[in-house]
C-alpha cells in the first residue's frame, strides 16, 4: 500500500531526492525505448509496451504533482509539463525551415529546463503546509521501494531461469525420454542416424569424479591458506596475500582451459609418462586452482569472525597455537568453513570452459585420475551451438540442465541441513 501510494498517488508531498530517484529511471527508460528500440513486432507486445510507457508517465505526473505540493503550489502547475507535448504537435504542423519551428524548439527546451530546475533543485516549504506535513524524510520510502524490488527480482530471476530451462526440456522429458536409461546408461549417441541413445551416466560420473578430485586438491590447500592468512601472517604480508589470491580468482576460465590444453597437458605427459595429458587429473587441477581463491577468501572471513576472546581464553588456559586452531577456532568457524568448501564445490560442478578443454571431453567411465572424461556442463556447451532448436537433442540438452539444477539444489539442501544440524547441537 505504501509503495502504491509513493508511485501513483497525487496527494501528499515529496522532497527533491524522492523526485529524482523516481524520475531518473523513468527518463532513461523512455529515452531508450523511444530512440533505440524497434517497436515490438506483435500487436500484443506493442500494447504492453504502450501500457508500460503510460504507467511510467503516470508515475512521473504523480510524483511531479506531489513535488509542486511540496512547494505549496497547486497541481495545476503541472500544466507546464504539457508545453513540450503541445510543442511537438506544433512541430508536426510547422515545416522545418521556419521561424516558428525554431521558436517552438526554444520554448520546449526552456520549459523543460525550467520545470526540471524548479522541481529538482529547489526545496519545498519548511514544516507542514496545506498539502501535508514536512517532507524531509519522504524519499526514504522510495529507497525502501527500490531495495524491495532488488530482493524480489533475485527470486523472480531464479524462478524465471528455472521455468525457461524446464519449459525447453519438458516436452521430451514427459513423452519419449526413457528416464531410467537417461540416468543409468553410459551410451551417449544423440546424433546416431538410426539408434539414438541418451544415456548420461558417464557424464554424471565425469562431473562428480572431476569435482571430487578438485576438492581433494583444493580443500586442504584452501583451508590451510586461510588458516595461515588469518592466524600466522603479519598484517602487511596478509594484504599482499589477499590481493594475489583475488587476482587468481580474476583469471577467466577459458584461460585456465588453455593452460590445461597446452602447459598442463605437456606436464602430465612428462611426469606420469601418460599417452595424453588431457585427463581428469588435468581438469581437476584446473578446477582446484579456480576454486581455491573462493575457499580461501570465505574461510578466512569465517576464521576472522571468531571473537578474539576465544583465542585469548584458550591461550590463557595454556593451549598451544596448534591446539587453539584445532580445538577452538575450527569448531567455532565450522559453518563458515563448510560454506566455503561447498561454494568451491559448486564452482567446480558449474564450471564449463576449463573442463571442456582440459579433460579430453570423452564419453568414458573413469577408472583413475589419468582417464579422460566428459562432464554434463561441457556436453551442453559443446553441443548446444549446432543443434536444431526445439529438436529431441536440443531438449535432451535442456534436460541435462534440469539434472544439473537438481544436483546443485540437492548439494545446497544438504549444506543447509548440515549447517542447521551443527547449529542445534
Amino acid at each position, binding site marked *: 500500500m505504501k509503495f502504491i501510494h509513493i508511485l501513483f498517488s497525487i496527494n501528499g508531498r515529496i522532497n527533491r531526492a524522492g523526485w529524482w530517484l523516481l524520475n531518473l529511471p523513468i527518463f532513461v527508460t523512455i529515452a531508450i525505448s523511444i530512440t533505440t528500440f524497434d517497436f515490438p513486432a506483435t500487436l500484443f507486445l506493442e500494447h504492453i509496451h504502450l501500457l508500460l510507457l*503510460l504507467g511510467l508517465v503516470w508515475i512521473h505526473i504523480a510524483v511531479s504533482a506531489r513535488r509542486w505540493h511540496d512547494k505549496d503550489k497547486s497541481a495545476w502547475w503541472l500544466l507546464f509539463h504539457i508545453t513540450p507535448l503541445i510543442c511537438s504537435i506544433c512541430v508536426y504542423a510547422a515545416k522545418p525551415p521556419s521561424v516558428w519551428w525554431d521558436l517552438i524548439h526554444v520554448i520546449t527546451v526552456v520549459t523543460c529546463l525550467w520545470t526540471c530546475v524548479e522541481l529538482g533543485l529547489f526545496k519545498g516549504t519548511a514544516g507542514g503546509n496545506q498539502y501535508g506535513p514536512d517532507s524531509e524524510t519522504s524519499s526514504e520510502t522510495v529507497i525502501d521501494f527500490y531495495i524491495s524490488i532488488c530482493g524480489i527480482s533475485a527470486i523472480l530471476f531464479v524462478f524465471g531461469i528455472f521455468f525457461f530451462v524446464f519449459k525447453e526440456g519438458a516436452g521430451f522429458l514427459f513423452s519419449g525420454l526413457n528416464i531410467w536409461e537417461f540416468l543409468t546408461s553410459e551410451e551417449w*549417441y544423440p546424433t546416431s542416424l538410426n539408434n539414438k541413445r541418451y544415456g548420461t551416466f558417464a557424464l554424471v560420473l565425469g562431473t562428480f569424479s572431476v569435482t571430487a578430485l578438485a576438492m581433494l586438491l583444493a580443500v586442504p590447500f584452501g583451508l590451510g591458506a586461510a588458516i595461515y592468512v588469518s592466524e600466522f601472517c603479519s598484517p602487511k604480508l596478509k594484504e599482499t596475500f589477499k590481493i594475489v589470491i583475488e587476482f587468481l580468482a580474476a583469471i577467466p576460465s577459458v584461460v585456465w582451459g588453455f593452460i590445461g590444453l597446452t602447459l598442463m597437458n605437456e606436464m602430465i605427459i612428462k611426469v606420469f609418462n601418460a599417452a595424453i595429458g588431457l585427463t581428469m587429473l588435468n581438469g581437476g587441477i584446473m578446477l582446484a586452482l579456480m576454486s581455491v581463491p573462493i575457499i580461501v577468501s570465505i574461510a578466512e572471513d569465517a576464521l576472522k569472525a571468531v571473537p578474539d576472546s576465544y583465542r585469548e581464553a584458550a591461550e590463557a588456559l595454556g593451549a598451544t597455537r596448534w591446539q587453539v586452531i584445532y580445538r577452538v577456532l575450527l569448531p567455532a568457524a565450522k559453518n563458515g568453513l563448510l560454506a566455503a568448501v561447498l561454494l568451491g564445490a559448486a564452482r567446480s560442478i558449474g564450471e564449463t570452459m576449463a573442463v571442456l578443454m582440459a579433460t579430453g571431453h*570423452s564419453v568414458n567411465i573413469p577408472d583413475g585420475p589419468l582417464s579422460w572424461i566428459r562432464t554434463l556442463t561441457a556436453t551442453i556447451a559443446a553441443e548446444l551451438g549446432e543443434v536444431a532448436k526445439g529438436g529431441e537433442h536440443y531438449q535432451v540438452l535442456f534436460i541435462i540442465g534440469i539434472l544439473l539444477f537438481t544436483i546443485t539444489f540437492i548439494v545446497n539442501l544438504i549444506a543447509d541441513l548440515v549447517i542447521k544440524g551443527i547449529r542445534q547441537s
Partner: protein
Amino acid sequence: MKYRGLIIYVALSILVFSIYGFVIRDSSSEKQSGGESGQSIIKNKGSDTMVNLAQAWAEAYSDISDTVSVEVSGGGSGTGVAALINGTVDIANCSRQIKPKEKDEAQKNTGKEPIEFIVGYDALAVYVHKDNPLDRITIPELAEIYGEEGEITLWHQLGTANAGCHSDKIIRISRQSNSGTYFYFREALLGKDRDFELGSLDLHGSKDVVEVIGRTHCAIGYSGMGYATDHVKMLEVATASDQPYFAPNLENVIAKTYPIARPLYMYSLGEPTGQAKAYLDWILSSEGQKIVEELGFVPLTRN
C-alpha cells in the same frame, strides 16, 4: 477540489497517449514502405554442413551490398532440394549432387532446370603425430578404428611399430557429435548403419584436433586438410587395401580420387538472373572463395 489533480492527470495521459499513437503509426508505416521498396531478398536453404559457410557468405555480402539481404537456413541437403523443387528458395545448398529424379521433378514443377554450381570442397585429412611411422591407411581400417565395436585398438595392428607411443593404444580424436565434420566422416567410414565407438576425445574445433594430435604420439584424428601444421602428418588414404592410395591435396580432391572429399554444390532454378546471379558470381570470385578457406573447406583454386 480533491479530484482536481486527477482530472489533470486524465487530460494529460489522453494527450500523451494520442501523440504517442501518432508517432507509432508514422514510424511503423515508414519502416514498412522502406522494407518493400529498397531491399531484395535472396532465399538460401539446405545442407547443414554448409550452413555456417552460407551464413558467412551472407554476412560478408551484406557488407558489400546494401540492397540485397540473403536469408540462410539449414535443415539438410534434402530439404534444400525439396524447397528448390517447390520453387520456394532462390538457391539450394547441397553437400551431394542432385539426383536425376529430383532434377526431373523440379523441371516438371517449375518449368526450370536446376543449374549446378560447385562452390568449394569439403575434404577431411586423417592426421597422426609427425613421428608416427604410419604413412597410409585404408577406409576399412579407419572404420575398424572408429566404428562401434571396432577390431583395431592398437597401433601394431596397422602393421607399424609406433615407437613414440608406449601403451601402443590408439587414441581416437574426434569432434563433438553434431558437427558437420563428424557427420561426414562417420558417413564416409561407416555408412548410415553404424555409430562411432564411445571413448574418443571429442574436441571442439578443427584447429584443436590438429593441435592435440601434434602433442600426442598415440593419437589419430580427422580434420579439414587446411589445418595441417608442422607437428602432424597427413595420411594417404585408399578405399581398400588393393586400391591405390591418394594424398589429401587439391589435385586429388578436384580429380575426385581422394576418397574422403566431396564437392559442395549450390543449385539455382534456371540460369540465375539479377541479384542471385551477382551473389553466385561473388561466391565464385576470389573474395567469396577466401571465406571458403577461412571456414576450413577447400576453395576451388588456391589464392
